[in-house]
């Protein structure tokens, strides 16, 4: 059996447009007034078909519409894509089909249509439950609007999750914990809770470099916020199953689990990434990021992909470890060794164990509560 089968197979579809660019965001998102929805639908369909040609027959476990803001897609586009996926590969009976939505009223109106199209899970970018902070984050919605959209979503979809960004400017641990409890009181079964990351090339990034992005929580306080977040979520029955993701047992995002368990995934649309095992060779694929360039390429070649990059086994091993260690369930050392062709350095493992950063049980390697917030340093040590 090929390694990817430990993780499953998902399809990611990227919609690269937003109503406005948020100052913190470095995702592949663009603001465009006139989008030719038919043209985009056809192009996405074409690239889907090209992907299916590459993979050959296999069943699809999950579909994810991400962005950008996929809730700005027309429902008939979403519907056509889901149908095409089913036709090309076949959807597993209980396939998870998620869509990212911004919580504005315009988009909430479309939830019923998305549901009819086959979407069964929605992930909403609420970001904050504080109006001032929403403004500071450059968001287009208010708290009230977001909560209303959330209610509509709850009525339409069995599974609803939302995203919050914390460790924001001027935010203290105390404030955040209160906000988090408020979020948990909404009876959700899944939350993505991201600490604000300052990315180069974003507006926040520019401000930060000039020293004009002030009052970010100091690193020690951010660490406290992180640890507290996990505890509070646990109080409400949501366990942290990944660095930034919390869910009731069974309510985890199965699509994201495919990434973290290093399964195979197709990536459709501008700037999408894929890992596909083609003829037993795991291959990295990614598409051109500029929307117009991607469209032109699809028109000519039926796909907008860069040249595929076959991944050496040691690179696969590194990717597997880096992805899977994000999960609370940890990594399977047998899988790692099969890919890497060797064990992790036992002195490094012992040193990190002695520091209380990692633990092993049987063939499972996990970050401990102390090691989890230091995952990057820890992986750098393990993979040195």
């Amino acid at each position, binding site marked *: 059996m090929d390694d990817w089968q430990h993780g499953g197979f998902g399809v*990611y579809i*990227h919609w690269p447009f937003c109503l406005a660019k948020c100052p913190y965001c470095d*995702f592949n998102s663009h603001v465009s007034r006139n989008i030719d929805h038919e043209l985009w639908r056809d192009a996405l369909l074409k690239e889907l078909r090209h992907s299916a040609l590459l993979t050959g027959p296999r069943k699809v476990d999950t579909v*994810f519409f*991400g962005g950008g803001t996929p809730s700005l897609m027309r429902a008939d586009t979403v519907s056509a894509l889901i149908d095409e996926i089913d036709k090309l590969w076949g959807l597993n009976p209980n396939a998870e089909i998620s869509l990212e939505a911004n919580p504005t009223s315009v988009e909430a109106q479309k939830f019923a249509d998305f549901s009819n199209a086959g979407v069964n899970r929605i992930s909403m970018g609420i970001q904050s439950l504080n109006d001032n902070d929403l403004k500071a984050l450059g968001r287009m919605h208010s708290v009230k609007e977001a909560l209303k959209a959330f209610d509509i979503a709850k009525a339409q979809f069995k599974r609803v999750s939302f995203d919050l960004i914390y460790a924001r400017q001027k935010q203290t641990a105390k404030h955040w914990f209160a906000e988090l409890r408020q979020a948990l009181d909404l009876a959700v079964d899944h939350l993505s809770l*991201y*600490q*604000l*990351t300052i990315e180069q090339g974003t507006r926040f990034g520019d401000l930060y470099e000039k020293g004009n992005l002030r009052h970010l929580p100091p*690193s*020690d306080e*951010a*660490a406290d916020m*992180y640890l507290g977040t996990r505890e509070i979520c646990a109080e409400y029955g949501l366990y942290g199953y*990944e*660095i*930034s993701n919390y869910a009731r047992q069974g309510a985890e995002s199965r699509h*994201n689990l495919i*990434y*973290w368990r*290093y399964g195979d*995934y197709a*990536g459709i649309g501008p700037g*999408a*990434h*894929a*890992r596909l095992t083609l003829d037993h060779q795991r291959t*990295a694929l*990614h598409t051109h990021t500029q929307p117009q360039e991607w469209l032109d390429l699809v028109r000519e070649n039926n796909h907008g992909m860069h040249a595929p990059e076959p991944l050496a086994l040691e*690179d696969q091993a*590194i*990717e597997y470890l*880096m*992805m899977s260690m*994000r999960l609370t369930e940890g990594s399977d050392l047998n899988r790692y060794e099969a890919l890497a062709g060797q064990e992790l350095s036992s002195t490094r493992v012992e*040193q*990190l164990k002695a*520091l209380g*950063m990692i633990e092993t049980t049987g063939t499972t390697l996990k970050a401990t509560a102390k090691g*989890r*917030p*230091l*995952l*990057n*340093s*820890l*992986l*750098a*040590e393990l*993979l*040195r």
Partner: protein
Amino acid sequence: MTELKNIRNFSIVAHIDHGKSTLADRLIQSTGTVADRDMQAQLLDSMDIERERGITIKANTVRIEYKAKDGETYVLNLIDTPGHVDFAYEVSRSMRAVEGSLLVVDAAQGVEAQTLANVYHAIEADHEIVPVLNKIDLPAAEPERVCEQIEDVIGIDATDAVMISAKTGIGIADVLEAIVTRLPAPEGDADAPLKAMLVDSWYDPYLGVVVLVRVIDGVLKKGDKIKMLATNASYPVDRVGVFKPEMQPIDKLGPGEMGFLTASIKQVRDTRVGDTITHEKKGVEEALPGFKPAQPVVFCGLFPVDTALFEDLRESIEKLALNDASFSYETESSAALGFGFRCGFLGLLHLEVIRDRLEREYDIDLITTAPSVIYKVYLRDGTIVELHNPADMPDLTLVDHIEEPRIKATILVPDEYLGDVLKLCQDRRGIQIDLTYAGARAMVIYDLPLNEVVFDFYDRLKSVTKGYASFDYSMEGYAEDQLVKMQILVNDEPVDALSTMVHRARAEARGRAMCAKLKELIPQHMFKIPIQAAIGGRVIARETISALRKDVTAKCYGGDATRKRKLLDKQKKGKKKMREFGRVSIPQSAFISALKMDD
């Protein structure tokens, strides 16, 4: 061959930035020595580093032909000398090859420390000196005041000082006339046996060793068999030529002339600066006074960041040393840094220049350890150890006492900053020798330990005086003091490359400052790291770097696993700029930065 009466040999002495290179450019240009299209700024500064930093490191010469007002054509040989104190020795010996000097002083700034130091070299060499006031185009220029200053402080007559602007070209013609009319022609005898001075030598990749010579008596021709008196080696001369400023072969050099020769000499080290060159047969027996070779005074360790590059570093250092006899090196092995070289330099600028060239021209990342001077350690059994490296300090129980080198520092500073300068010198264990005024500026002379100066004294001086002070020094011999070796322990392990010699009374403050600095410089790790300063076994200062608590990517970026791998590669690259000590990674820059005092 040029007639003696039509030759003038001279140098230009100036404080840095007073316009020496610009004036040289103008002289070269206005006499048509170099065609306009080939002209580039700071023509005589040939190395990248010289051009970039605007400093002259090696002496350079150029031969200028000038048709004077008297109708005769003169050959003017200009030696451009480095202005920086590190190369003072080079200056003094170049001066001995010429008869006169242009003393260039910035008409807005007036006399500065290097003006003094350099003009004293000229006076010692018995030069005729023509004062030249430059930058008279500047609104702030005060030529009268500066002339007075020259007379008061230096004691030479400035009534006939030439007023110029090297930038705009004003007065350049007057400078040329002054060279011809006011500087003496050389003396010599074409019929006497050959006697020439070896002024300098360097390695040229195409020609091998090139020797800069000044002929005193006799004639030097291509094909001659020459002998060097100091080394007693003989060579057939391959080429004789002059600098225009590029090398141009000619048939022969007569008395009073300057030029070069090549003679299949393999290494710069086979030549002695100041040596006397004569003919193998019927040569002179009596040598010129000669010079002693320049001695390195500042030492530091150079280690490749990547230990695998040690052999590359050796090759590069050997190549550099071919061209720079004043730079010394020997292999050094450090418990902390592995294999590298202990290198000796004329001063800190020299150190930086060599390090820059190694990193740039030879592409090797280096760890530079704390600069040190040569201590004389007197042991109880009567032996004396010359200590170049604090790591080699003998056991304290064996030591009777320690002597360190001291310098005489001359500092010129506007009155308003005088207090800060005195405090700085006092803090650096200085003893005031003299305090006088040169116009509106105070001139202080201090006796200072070299080890307090080699490091960041000049930087500190510049910062406390906002750049208005000028500084020069000369070596003054050794004196005893209460010196101890201070060790730094990182995560309980001594890091030998951070050991320094300090004065006992200052050890604690110094130790505290170093620990605090290292705390800033060493990144947080997954565990906490104690940093201690210790003398013998006694800890005198301590800091702790707290453990890193958060370092994780929050977002997942969809399936972009490539991004994660790139992050890992970036972390690995970062690590390459660090060195491991036990489990602690110390950045390459920390070894020098840890010593910088911000007080």
